């Protein structure tokens, strides 16, 4: 897992989103590319068991963001289990500087990072529309 992130970091330095492994996730990628253009969006991480696509404006924070995404999604599963909340739809973590929206669509773990004033609901609506399709 770490190796995958590291390799992604190396290639992300070239300011291009990088796909690792096979990518049956083109729709998601296209959607995330669209979301990336929204006001205040800093970047995204898209991962599944076979591939990872990472596109962040500040590549120095790539590993920190990837670790946080993974922890938040794991914590959300734990919360859901403990309080019998059912399937996790999404999780939003707000920091002092940045907020992060994470969700799982099929087997794909998605995290979108944005500035605090960015419209999180708009992003959520866009991703859910994709989920319904």
């Amino acid at each position: 897992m770490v190796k995958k992130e590291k390799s992604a970091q190396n290639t992300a330095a070239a300011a291009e989103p990088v796909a690792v492994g096979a990518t049956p996730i083109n729709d998601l990628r296209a959607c995330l590319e669209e979301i990336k253009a929204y006001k205040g969006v800093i970047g995204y991480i898209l991962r599944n068991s076979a591939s990872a696509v990472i596109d962040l404006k500040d590549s120095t924070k790539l590993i920190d963001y990837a670790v946080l995404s993974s922890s938040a999604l794991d914590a959300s599963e734990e919360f859901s289990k403990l309080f019998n909340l059912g399937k996790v739809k999404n999780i939003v973590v707000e920091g002092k500087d940045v907020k992060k929206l994470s969700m799982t669509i099929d087997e794909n773990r998605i995290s979108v990072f944005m500035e605090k004033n960015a419209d999180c609901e708009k992003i959520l609506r866009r991703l859910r529309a994709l989920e319904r399709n």
Partner: protein
Amino acid sequence: MELKNVDNELYSFALKSALSEVRNVCPGIKTSFMFKKDGEIIAGDEGTPEKVVARVVDAFDSVLEKADAIGGVECMTLECSKGRANVSCMDDLYLVTVTSKKADVNHVNIVTRVLIPTVLKLLEKIHPAPLKSNLPTSETEPEIPAVKEAEKPAEVSAEEPITEELKEPLEPEPSLPEPPVNQLIVEDLRGLLVPSDTVRIDGETLSEWEGLYDGRKIEEVEVETFDGNVTQCEVKPIKDWKYEGKGIIRIPEKIQLTLEIKKGELVRVKPIVE
């Protein structure tokens, strides 16, 4: 110390009452409780077992540890098919609310974000101390005379012959008990932020050892394999509840390689007391 306990009880009671009122106003709230940044639970409802609360705190802590990149955690909201969970930072405290699917989220947010901070402000005005006193004083106090005792002979030694004066503080050392040896099962310790020279064992075991040595902090242990390989390394308590109370020692890959051991094997572990 007693006064502090009374104050803490008052705080806890006031916050518990506030949470209870919030639940009365917002029937959609299934669970709510508050904990400090260090994980100590301040107030909660009776319906939530302590074990569940501890696991929530543990899960949230894992996020908190990695949230420096976004400037810490001010709020975390989890939306699920059967309800929502929210963790909000209020001063030095975190408030957890779990609501049902039908709950009016805006109403819950408005009530909790107004009522709880108001109660906290009031408590802060009445008794500013308890919630800010996170450091246990009982641990630091005994160290002061120990240091002073060590300093006194040194001062004298500047004026008088050294040899005999220095022998005195060394005398109590032979009375230290033999270090206990525990047999523990090796478990992997991996992660990006894991120091390669530190193993983790049960906090309870560490406390027992510290109890044997008059509360001296155990910071290092000696790990010995059954093949006779030995190494000394730093030690910290296990954080992950999944490994607690199972007789496990979590060892980073580097130390495992040094000792030529792997997950599932038994090792002997004893504290190093200087």
